[in-house]
């Protein structure tokens, strides 16, 4: 559905993205992950035809974004980081307007459907400026959905929302992603990617550093980290002997990382108790690989999960 080949975009001397390539199949839900300024938004804006690319190709549904922008835009619903709202319009009017310029047949009915879909029915007659941030985000979603696009491109759909609103939007996304619709969403909230996406594209400093299936990452979820009071060599051997453990990495101060292919926490714990077990925790594989891949750029993503 979406093919991106060696996409590069420069702003003067600054290179926002360089040689970005990936593809997304029909009906797939893909998470775009990366620190701020990694090039997520730039890539998404090119995909939606909002900006041009310096070089490379992007195709949506077989149409080149630069050569047939209208065909692409008819098939893509885009929610930018800041929802593109006309604050003094009424919700209903606004969504109908979006439907009209996006070429939805019967814009009023399409708008009513989109409003229903994102749960805005109760505020459809209100002025957008008077709505809460969560509702405004939904209006943005309604705008992206109004022409019933095959592809949804959502740039940080949950940023700036409180946890309850974030959960609502996430559930909405799951609902929208069900079926034939292809969804690309960017975020720096890892839990969101795991909850919603099937696949993740990690981008850092303008380059794709990894693409992986969430399921593959989850398979490696049995890794554990433990800390003991009296580390010794026999512990290493004893841990290695546990069935399912494929590797043990010792670190300073009695810290160990155990790589395992099945649930091993109980056995590891019983082996480690003799050495004075202080803590035992599962390793989050997605978070780990994300941090490893984007190391040395931007603040810790775990900090960014806090509502700003």
């Amino acid at each position, binding site marked *: 559905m979406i093919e991106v080949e060696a996409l590069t975009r420069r*702003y003067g001397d600054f290179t926002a993205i360089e040689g970005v390539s990936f593809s997304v199949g029909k009906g797939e839900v893909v998470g775009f992950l990366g620190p701020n300024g990694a090039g997520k938004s730039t890539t998404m804006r090119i995909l*939606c*035809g*909002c*900006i*041009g690319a310096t070089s490379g190709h992007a195709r949506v549904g077989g149409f080149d974004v630069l050569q047939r*922008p*209208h*065909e692409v*835009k*008819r098939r*893509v619903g*885009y929610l*930018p980081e*800041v*929802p*593109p*709202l*006309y*604050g*003094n*319009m009424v919700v209903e*009017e606004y969504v109908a*307007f*979006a439907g*009209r*310029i*996006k*070429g939805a047949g019967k814009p009023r009915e399409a708008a009513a459907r989109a409003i229903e879909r994102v749960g805005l029915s109760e505020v459809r007659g209100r002025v957008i400026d008077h709505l809460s941030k969560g509702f405004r985000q939904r209006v943005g979603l309604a*705008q992206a959905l109004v022409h019933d696009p095959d592809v949804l491109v959502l740039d940080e759909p949950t940023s700036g929302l409180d946890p309850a609103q974030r959960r609502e939007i996430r559930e909405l996304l799951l609902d929208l992603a069900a079926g034939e619709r292809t969804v690309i969403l960017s975020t720096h909230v890892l839990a969101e990617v795991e909850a919603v996406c099937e696949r993740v594209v990690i981008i850092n400093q303008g380059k794709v550093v990894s693409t992986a299936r969430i399921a593959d990452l989850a398979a490696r979820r049995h890794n554990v980290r433990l800390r003991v009071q009296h580390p010794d060599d026999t512990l290493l051997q004893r841990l290695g002997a546990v069935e399912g453990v494929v590797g043990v990495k010792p670190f300073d101060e009695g810290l160990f990382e155990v790589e395992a292919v099945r649930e091993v926490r109980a056995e590891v714990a019983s082996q480690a108790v003799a050495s004075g077990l202080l803590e035992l925790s599962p390793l989050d594989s997605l978070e780990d690989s994300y941090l490893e891949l984007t190391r040395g750029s931007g603040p810790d993503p775990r900090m960014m999960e806090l509502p700003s």
Partner: protein
Amino acid sequence: MNAILAIARRELDSYFTSPLGWIALCGFVFITGFFFTFFLLQFNQYAVSAAFDPYGSEALDINEALLPMLFGNWAVVLMLMCPAVSMRIFSDDVRQKSFELLLSSPVGSGAIVMGKFLGAMGFLAVTFASTLYQPAVLYWLGAPDPGVLSGSYLSMMLYAACCIAIGMLASAFTQSQIISFMVSFATILVLYLLPWVVEGASSEWVSALGQLGMGAHIEEMAKGLVHTEDLVYFATFIGACLFATQQRVESFRWR
């Protein structure tokens, strides 16, 4: 085409859902109404004294003594009003990020510019329509020449269209409405005054420059004489500004 109309409609509606639109509309109707009353009373005074003039000076003609005064003042009021109407067209849209909606829709930059221009012109049409009580009063009191009246309205509409087109171009270059207003006001002022500035210049080239100004093309039309060259001037002027605006909007994708 549907998209152009949708954009025009939204643009027009936005004037009536914001204080700016209402202030511009009411301000224009009030100021022109003030001038109308003032000149009408003045005209009445002159007409009465002319009638009692024992040396029998010619009776005052409403078409020559009143209407040019009225519409001459319109031009000045529009010089301020049009930049106020056009300053937000792109500046605000880009600054509020709502422009992304247009950019991500299957609408070309030409259609965006055209839609917004038509929307602003629609607003001006509403504004002009709110002043139609003035000709009604004149018909009630006397017999103004319909040619002069409609020519005056037409010249003001075309003049306002030029001002809006200049304003849109300025608006596409900045996210600041104030800057947009100042630049378009200054441009319109210079263009309007150009014919008078170059008046009496010895060089033919310099006096030809006066033709670039809008003032030179309003005069005849306001007398009810619609010349093709004036229409061509307005069409070219507006077309050039809109084309430049379209080029600017297209370049948004590459900035």
